């Protein structure tokens, strides 16, 4: 869908559909990315807050979903309130989340033994309504499960993130199956912004918005979250010089 000129007829129609939609009676705001090029891809101007979003890693990141986790942390950094992070494998390193802008005091981790227990915790947290957001690292997400989560998120106005993470590449085909999530994202690592000298520049991601309800898909090449969780539109896309500063890294002997 082309990023649009104002179309009153279409907007009116959308509003009417939203009114007769199954449960979508609540208009509980959006969370803009703060990057106009991304935000204008959403009909409401940002990521809808009351809904389920699916995020997965791409390429080698399918299994560890490290970039995807930071992408979600960056989004959560701009929300307010506690964040519940449900996981089955406790290998998330908290300092990295803090570097993506998500303060450690806001995150409460829930470790579940099995996927089924994880999904129940996910749903319970979504229903609470007083949280900034809920993240769950899940492998399988069936239509039924995602529908329950979506309803819970809609009812409470809490954004839920299903961070898809599989144990084997073969299982990752599950990502193609339909779910009730509002949006579906894939985050893959790209070679970092080149620097003049040696060293690694600011991390860059290929952010693919694969699907969204009421909207089209899009790809962005962005620079990874900064210390406040904001993405930077990559210099390649905007044709500007690199903005990343070379990191002052020396042996702290």
């Amino acid at each position, binding site marked *: 869908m082309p990023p649009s000129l104002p179309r009153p007829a279409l907007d009116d129609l959308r509003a009417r559909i939203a009114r007769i939609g199954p449960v979508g009676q609540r208009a509980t705001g959006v969370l803009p990315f703060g990057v106009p090029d991304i935000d204008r891809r959403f009909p409401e101007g940002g990521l809808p807050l009351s809904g389920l979003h699916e995020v997965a890693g791409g390429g080698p990141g399918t299994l560890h979903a490290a970039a995807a986790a930071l992408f979600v942390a960056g989004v959560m950094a701009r929300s307010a309130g*506690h964040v519940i992070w449900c996981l089955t494998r406790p290998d998330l390193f908290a300092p990295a989340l803090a570097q993506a802008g998500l303060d450690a005091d806001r995150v409460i981790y829930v470790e579940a033994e099995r996927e089924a227990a994880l999904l129940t915790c996910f749903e319970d947290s979504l229903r609470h309504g007083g949280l900034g957001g809920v993240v769950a690292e899940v492998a399988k997400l069936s239509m039924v499960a995602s529908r329950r989560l979506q309803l819970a998120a809609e009812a409470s106005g809490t954004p839920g993130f299903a961070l898809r993470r599989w144990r084997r590449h073969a299982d990752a085909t599950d990502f193609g199956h339909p779910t009730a999530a509002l949006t579906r994202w894939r985050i893959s690592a790209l070679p970092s912004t080149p620097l003049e000298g040696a060293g690694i520049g600011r991390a860059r991601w290929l952010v693919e918005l694969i699907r969204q309800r009421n909207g089209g898909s899009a790809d962005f090449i962005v620079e990874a979250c900064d210390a406040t969780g904001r993405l930077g539109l990559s210099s390649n896309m905007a044709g500007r010089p690199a903005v990343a500063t070379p990191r002052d890294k020396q042996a702290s002997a």
Partner: protein
Amino acid sequence: MGRDVRGRIIQAASRQALLAGLRPGMSLAHASAIFGQLTHYEFDPAEDAAALERLAQWALRRYSPIVMPDPPAGLVIDITGASHLHGGETDLVTDLRRRLLNSRIDAHVCVADTWGAAHAVARFSGQGVFCIPSGGTPEALGSLPTEALRLDPDLADGLRRVGLETIGDLMTTPRGPLELRFGPEPGRRLDQALGRRPDLITPIQAPERIEVDHHFSDPILTSDILLQEVERLSRSLCEALERRSLGALEIDLLTNAVGGEWNALRVGFSSPTRHPERFMRLLKDRLQNTDRGFGIERLHLSASRSTPLIAQQCETLTSSPQVPDIGPLLDVLEARTGKQRLYRIQAVESDCPERSVERVSPLEPPNRARWDPRWPRPARLLEPPDPIETIALLPDQPPVQFTWKGVRRRVLRADGPERIHGEWIRGQDDWMSVRDYFSVEDETGERYWLFREGDGVSLETGSHRWFLHGIFG
């Protein structure tokens, strides 16, 4: 030291004295003749009973709602439904024994399916801590003497005279002739130990506890009515708590089924509360699975741990919007996953990455420590670090390529080294050790956090092997 017709005799002796050959039942004169110097105290049954009662109250507060003193020197604790709060049965008994040892009580602890079996093994196996796996009672008891079954010493003596030395012998002997000669007692005790016959425990009550109790004239059979009644009790417990300005941190629900069997449910809260809804939310799921037997005759609900909770003014005209209360949610999550699996992570002052994080309870007040924002840290940390094969120049070059999980990756860009020294305060192993961390990026743009053990020059500082420690996002 007690008295009988022979004068002063020994009632009980310390471990050292027993090892030296002193036996309960010896006369003091005899013992003094053998050992010379003896420290002895008068036997005071009333004080012993009182001390046991105090110990039982302590166990009641700490471990389980069903505790019974078993004189002269035993405690019966029914940990069914309460052991998960201490991380399982093994952890519970280890903790129990450690705490008792700290108060200089050398106790033998045994966990078993039945009171009878635990009684036998704790007293006669000679082991400090023993957990009989569920269903393993017959094997565990087989080789113990028949006295272990709580039988009268004379009766055990009689059994021994006809060749029935151990409980195993008793198990294989036909019941009829045994009963003819020795009466029903041996069979009854054996059945109790094996769980074929109920064994009644009369739990003690804590004097200062806030509790409500209800007897029913007709036993409750359906779960709907049970829930209703528990809810009614919850409400009266909350009223009782409110009268004293207290909030419950932990509540116990005891159900007494027809036939005398007690069942206990213990649930904990993340923050003090006196809302019946919060009680019910946790009790409801657990109550569905309670064994109701032939009906429940009596319900007993008590706040086993409580703390002052003073009513607060919730809103004023000028106050900022309220922070939503996440306590109820944490209760639910904790009941689903367990206390250790619900945590916040806070920073600890340490350069060593795996020591720089610490798990704390979610409601712990935030501390000031923060991680250094300058050094990039990976989103996933492998614990333990994965050994990798590399091609790298010593001492301070990043690898040119490395192989992880059978895949070779060519390093295009790298940052480092970031040198992290061992923390000598932690001990000998850390004294000299050094890790050199490198962030590297491969052709696909994936970034990894590698380190080399040692400074690349001297082998004293580490083995010079390479590890993959984390994956950047």
